[in-house]
């Protein structure tokens, strides 16, 4: 934790413009209304640079297990950042009345929204984990397993995230009982969590990738 906080402090000290971008991103998340989830995913994609290692990280005298723990820890820290940003977004939506239509949905269907947020955080973690484990180096899972555990929950997430956008004024989760939607979202999140465990279990450390490290070394 200390190391992560120190690196955050360094980036604030030396890259204030980058932090301004971050603050703008938080503002965007808060104001994104029905697209909040989508915007957060976008931010997550841009942040993948954090989980790429410098060459030094690959050369350090650590066992494979220690190196994996180190990378997982870093993913966890970045995930924590998204959790905090997400919670700030939710708090702001609750505290600032009439900000967006999304606020109305959040207040009317709290349980459904909570389940959506759980799925969103699971998806962010899974995206980063896939990246840090460089899945292409691993044994293939088989397309059925990958579809069921990885792709299907992603489709569920984006369907809910974009439903208000696609069906203005009448998102489809107003159809049917709330608990059905909550179950769908939680099952999708559970599948992702299982998928994360599978990825961790079958994770084989890969080669250092100089081009990616160079391109994505930005904090």
């Amino acid at each position: 934790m200390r190391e992560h906080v120190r690196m955050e402090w360094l980036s604030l000290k030396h890259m204030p413009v980058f932090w301004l971008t971050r603050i703008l991103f938080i503002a965007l998340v808060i104001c994104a209304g029905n697209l909040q989830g989508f915007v957060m995913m976008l931010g997550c994609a841009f942040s993948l640079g954090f989980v790429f290692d410098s060459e030094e990280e690959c050369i350090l005298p650590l066992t494979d297990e220690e190196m994996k723990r180190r990378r997982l820890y870093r993913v966890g820290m970045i995930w924590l950042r998204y959790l905090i940003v997400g919670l700030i977004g939710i708090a702001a939506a609750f505290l600032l009345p009439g900000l967006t239509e999304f606020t109305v949905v959040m207040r009317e269907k709290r349980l459904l929204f909570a389940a959506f947020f759980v799925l969103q955080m699971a998806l962010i973690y899974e995206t980063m984990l896939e990246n840090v484990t460089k899945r292409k180096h691993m044994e293939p899972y088989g397309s059925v397993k990958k579809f069921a555990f990885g792709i299907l929950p992603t489709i569920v997430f984006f369907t809910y995230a974009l439903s208000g956008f696609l069906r203005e004024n009448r998102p489809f989760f107003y159809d049917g009982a709330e608990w059905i939607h909550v179950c769908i979202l939680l099952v999708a999140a559970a599948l992702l969590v299982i998928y994360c465990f599978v990825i961790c279990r079958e994770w084989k450390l890969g080669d250092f990738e100089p081009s990616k490290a160079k391109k994505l070394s930005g904090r």
Partner: protein
Amino acid sequence: MLLKCEHLTKKLGQYQLKDVSFTLEKGMILGVIGINGCGKTTLLRSILGSYRLDQSPEDAGELWIGDWHHKTQVKEYKGSMAYVLQECPFSEFMHPFEVGEKYGPFYQGFDLKKFKDLVKKYEVPEKKMISELSKGQVLRLQLAFAQSYPARLYVFDEPVGNLDVEFRDGFYETVRELVSNEESSVILSSHLVTELEGIADELLWLGKKDDEGYVRYHGTTDELRDGYRILSAEDGEEAIPPEMIRGKRIRESHKEWLLQATDGDFAGRLPKEMAGNLRYPDLQEIMYFVEKEEER
């Protein structure tokens, strides 16, 4: 013996460095040479561990530093190496001193004070981030880090290309000092073959055919040079035994041939008038002729 590399094979996309085996004794400096893309950096990265030998079915090989195996005693193996690489291995968003503070504790016997003193001595700006440093300054920073703990094997990948002439001299001096205790060894890759010739005790010459890198020569510089001669003459190629010719260069006034004879008997196989025109080649000439001939 300090380093043992057995049947190292590493596949990267279409390219493959194939079946590299060599040993390096304590107190020796091994120069790694070869044309661009022959696999010098791939070899050094494989030794350092940033390229792993288990990523594709073709990948193979065993590495030891002393008795430490690269897979079973990873911490000891990796902890006994220090390195200076072409590309900066550290996060670009750190200050020079932070490199020592963050990564130093991973290495046994790391002396932070010594590191800071060396950073100052090498005139690396302390207050700039690594991304703001010049390539030469980054190399000096790496050198300071490498010298701040007692390593057994020093791996230098093209370290001198971005250094000014003055610092380059000092660098070679430092390399000699590193092996002077007869306990450590150095692997040094460079394009500056002539400079390498002056410092390396042994050479590992990597060749490249199609998409495959392989060991063309491993041994001392003198042994390599002893096996070759340059013959200068206006003409008369038909008088040279064809099996001796390893390359040919046409100059304005004359022609030059690189001849090879494993037993060292050059004069005995040539007409008397030609034998007088033989001379020893330097390393760069051997490389030039052989690689040029290979291209053909």
